[in-house]
């Protein structure tokens, strides 16, 4: 991503070694902190998540190298706390496709699509389970 212009200093002004400090003197996130970085603009293919087939096994959450699976804490039938996968953080997902590989559902709950694909359209045309032939 392009570095915001307000962060660009002259050659004789910045800390040597391109060292970036995470916090300012008051302990707040510094302007150099990567908290707000969007580091996915070079992605070519993206995964799309289909909630309707997901079984919340959390394989994708565990396997994602960029921790891009957004989870919500929910209670299951027995009242036990559980993580529910609700979506993908597209600001950090690089489109590696590992999540698709590890998804265990008979019809994948995650599939790769070209970056420009409309999510609703993709979900509407999601592969269906083939009817069993007699």
């Amino acid at each position, binding site marked *: 991503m392009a570095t915001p212009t307000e962060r660009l200093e002259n050659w004789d002004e910045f800390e040597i*070694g*391109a*060292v970036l*400090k995470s*916090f300012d003197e008051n302990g707040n996130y510094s302007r150099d902190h990567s908290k707000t970085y969007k580091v996915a603009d070079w992605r070519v293919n993206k995964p799309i998540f289909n909630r309707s087939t997901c079984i919340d096994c959390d394989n994708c959450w565990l396997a994602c190298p960029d921790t891009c699976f957004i989870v919500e804490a929910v209670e299951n039938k027995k009242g036990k706390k559980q993580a529910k996968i609700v979506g993908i953080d597209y600001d950090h997902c690089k489109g590696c496709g590992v999540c698709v590989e590890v998804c265990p559902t008979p019809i994948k709950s995650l599939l790769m699509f070209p970056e420009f694909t409309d999510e609703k359209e993709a979900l509407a045309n999601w592969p269906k389970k083939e009817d069993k032939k007699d």
Partner: protein
Amino acid sequence: MAEKYELKTKEVWDGNTAAAHALRQAQVDVVAAYPITPSTPIVQNYAQFLADGYVDGEFVMVESEHSAMSACVGASAAGGRVATATSSQGYALMVEVLYQASGMRCPIVMTVVNRALASPLNIHGDHGDLYLGRDAGWIHLIANNPQEAYDMTLCAFKIAEDEDVRLPVSTNQDGFLVSHTAQIVEPLDDDTAYKFIGDYKQRNPMLDFNNPVTYGAQTEEEWHFEHKARQHKALMDSPAVIERVFKEFKDLTGREYKLVESYNMDDAEVAVVAMGSNYETAKIAADKAREMGIKAGVVCPRSFRPFPLKEVAEILKNVKAIGAMDRSAPMGTIGALHNEITGALNAFGYNSIVTGYIYGLGGRDTTVEDNLEVFKDLALNAEAGKRVTPLQKFIKLRGPELSFFKVGE
């Protein structure tokens, strides 16, 4: 606490032993190294010192030189005093990380024992590895004998860690000719040596958990240029620090070092410029040349990077003919040192006749007589007032003379 090592005022050490003792006396926090001929004894001796209780720091075993330098970068960024050693192929494998070390401004000290680069495989001394690291953003100091290998290594820590420098420094000694040649070395005692170097001063250490920092940031076209420019400025400004450290070293030991070393240059009409052990050989040849009526002198840049352009030009400005001695295959142009010298002279408006000599590749013995032949060549050019010998000549090469840009061709 590390044990003190009992040293005599005069020891008989080869260059490797001298460098190893300097590393020990610096009380390095982390040495990560992979052995390679001819620098193996540096790390081997150092590991022995550690095993025997003379070193408090860590010795990290790695599986390659790429990992050795990577571990050094990590340890340096973490906030420790760091050193390593290598040669030749190991140096080549490190190259990628050499640029990382200097770009992250890690003041690592590397004691290099110069050796030829394959192929064909050769374990002996030439400057192929030094030239390979030329543009890596390191300070490269030259040591021409075991005493200098010791002295330069002590100075290297002080230069690298100076707050105005904060750059990695390599010390270079010729494989076998210096690294394995035992000579009298006058070491400092452990306390004096450590006091000269001083305690390590951290800057942005990663192990300071209250002030987390990122090393190795990505800076694309908006920033990379500025960072590289700043690093270059630090190198260009470093001679002042190098000279200050040399001055302090002289005050302590009486041994004087300069950015450009010279021998018999006051009235010299011809001069050889060489780095490494051949500087000493050329000095003897210069004496013989003077007996023959040739006013000969010798020059050695003590620091290959930063290259002392102005000082080199200044010392050579009144010399009629100069022989630039490059101990590395130039592979398609004039030698790197030849290039520096002509550049320096031209930049400051001097136009001595400069010819280049490629010598000693793969440890080919280069003797006093070989240097004397160079002085005789230079005398011909000086007498004619123009270049009458080839621009580049390979010396002591078996077979028909190999030279380029002969006069009249």
